[in-house]
């Protein structure tokens, strides 16, 4: 849970270092309710990746945060379903926020 999150392979080449235009790379924990984001990578090992992938969470998919309080689990909408994730799990999912003004 506390280890640093490594940038995934494809980030090393492109925009990860591009500091001119900061891109909002977060984990799911860092996003408020109503935010929309695209999943960039999963950082939890094969077992974790397989589980969340089967629930629809794969790199490239769009998710909407439905609930994110300061404590307790996080609720997201992904591929027409709602998935609850513990904070520890949400921390392993790296996302890029899209169009913050579209947030409710």
């Amino acid at each position, binding site marked *: *849970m506390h280890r640093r999150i490594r940038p995934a*392979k494809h980030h090393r080449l492109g925009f990860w270092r591009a500091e001119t235009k900061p891109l909002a790379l977060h984990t799911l924990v860092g996003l408020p309710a109503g935010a929309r984001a695209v999943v960039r*990578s*999963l950082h939890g090992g*094969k*077992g*974790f*990746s*397989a*589980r*969340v*992938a*089967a*629930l*629809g969470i*794969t*790199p*490239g*998919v769009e998710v909407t945060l*439905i*609930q994110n*309080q300061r*404590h*307790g*689990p996080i*609720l997201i909408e*992904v*591929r*027409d*379903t*709602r*998935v*609850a*994730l*513990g904070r*520890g*799990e949400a921390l392993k999912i790296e996302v890029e926020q899209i169009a913050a003004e579209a947030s409710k």
Partner: protein
Amino acid sequence: MSEGAPGAIGVGGAPLTVALAGQPNVGKSTVFNVLTGLSQHVGNWPGKTVEQKSGECHHQGNRFRVIDLPGTYSLTANSDEERVARDFIIQERPDVVVLIANAAALERNLYLLAELLALPQPVVVGLNMLDVAEQQGMRVEPHVLEAALGLPVVPMVASRNQGVCELLGRALALARKPESFTPQRPTMQADHQEVLVAIQALLVGRMPEAYPEEWVALKLLEGDSEVTQRVRAEAGEAWPKIETLLQQHEDAIVDIARGRYEWIGRMVRAALVRSRPGAITLTDRLDRVGIHPFWGLVLLLGVFGLVFWLTYAAAMPVVNWLDTKVISSVAEAAREVLTPAPEWLTSLLVDGLIDGAGAVLALVPVLVVFFAVLGLLEDVRYLARSAYVMDRFMHWVGLHGRSFLPLFVGFGCNVPGVMGARIIDDRRARLLTILLMPLVPCTGRMAVTAFLAPAFFGANAALVTWGLVTGNVVLLFLIGMAINGGLFKGAHSAFIMEMPLYHLPNAKTIGLYVWQNVWAFVRKAGTIILLASATVWLLSSLPGGEVEESVLARFGRWLEPAGAWLGLGEWRLIIALLSSFVAKENTIATLGVLYGSGGAKGLAELVGRTLTPAAALAFLIVQMTFVPCAATVAAIRQETGGWKWPAFSVGLLLVVSLGAAILVYQLARLLG
């Protein structure tokens, strides 16, 4: 389902085997119930703590054996359910696999199809919940999807019994002509395809025949732990090479999953039309309260209160009526019929079996109401919300929201609670949930408390009962923290759970749920409790036939000095407590036998008069937290696969219950 269409070609002999697959919350159990009704057989998958349901049905003169596979999101060995589902398909080779898919979450549901198509069995898709999809602003064209996938797609609304017949018809047609099954199958990205072929080549001739090499290679790339272990054991000298290849493609699972969703996206593109995106749905509105961190909790407490109020207010009068009218008249009738029989036989049958097991069976109405309400909450999908709301608190003991569900069931009866812990995928969390289960006061214990508290505390009975239940919950959390911190070193398990859309309840689903749980309880009463009642009777009658001089009385008196510590210097109470090991509700029956009171009314007061308030409180505390009953111990053994944990549980609760009672008794005496 018997249509008996004329001219149907009967496939005599063995029935066709249909495996029902699907993700959770797709209405699969509704389909299964519609198909098989009461012909269902519920058991366990061999060697696994996963429920196995099978049943029979008929269609156009053909017999089908329907196996309800556990609901799984994928076929990767993340959980026992997934292992069971795929082992069945691979090893038992059903004639057809029927995949029930939720049309309102089509893409995610077809992920399982992508997995199934890696296996050779023919697949029919039952596109269920089309009505729900419509409400969500989605239109799915089954024919378009069928054309894209190249396999039968049957539109269904199983809750209204639509499409189930056609589903069987298409399954039958496919089973008769399996060679006609030529679907589109998902393919791999080019770079992984190469490795897949390379691993496949290394596997040739090394795996058991039933396992397709391509599938095994795929699962290796996905990092499937079970397949990896098997191949390591069986691939011999090919393993190091395979391992090297796998290490070079560590991240393959993510790409494979993404590839599957891309394939699904192509398949559904033409078939899925979204009419009004972003509409606020009923689920959105209900969840504003249902999952709210504060109001959700208030709602949960309210629901909780309502469940118990309904259970006891609606069912208790029936229980009392059964207890005082029905069972006593059965006992009377038996006594009359048995007049010519020897006295000991009459005593065994009437005092032992009818009184003992009867008092337990009288609890059936309580369980019926409890499981009906619970089944309703499950079927409208509220229970998932309760798990979500409780997640924060379950973290205090190193568990997560999912553990709340079996603990809730435990309030009805600990046995289905222990079995229900199967829904927790993490072994450690499941074990901890099972160990905490006996601290959840079941209806049996609540019945004893409800019976004795008014006699002990008069007007304050409700307050005392409330305090006792709260005490149990506090103990549960304290002990949970202790076990988690000490035994499990504060480990944390992952909470990942689907939050399904709210759903209109289905009477048949709830009815079957009640029936299966209550029937299991009745069977228990018919076997274990009957035997135990006979044993208690025997011990309380030998050697002379007088309770006062019996083996049991002597044993009880021997324990009196210890009992005095918690104010129970009365052997009858000690024995009543010990007899709760047979079944919690037995305490009342045993007191009845030992105090020799005929009417139930007088008994509680009779007992109450022998105890000081402090001792009465101590008795109720021990009773509420005492060692798990025999059936629960048996369930713990079955679920944990050995005697180690049931023994631990008994020891732990013995210490906890006596400790708590001694503490309270001594404190109460000090304070007067």
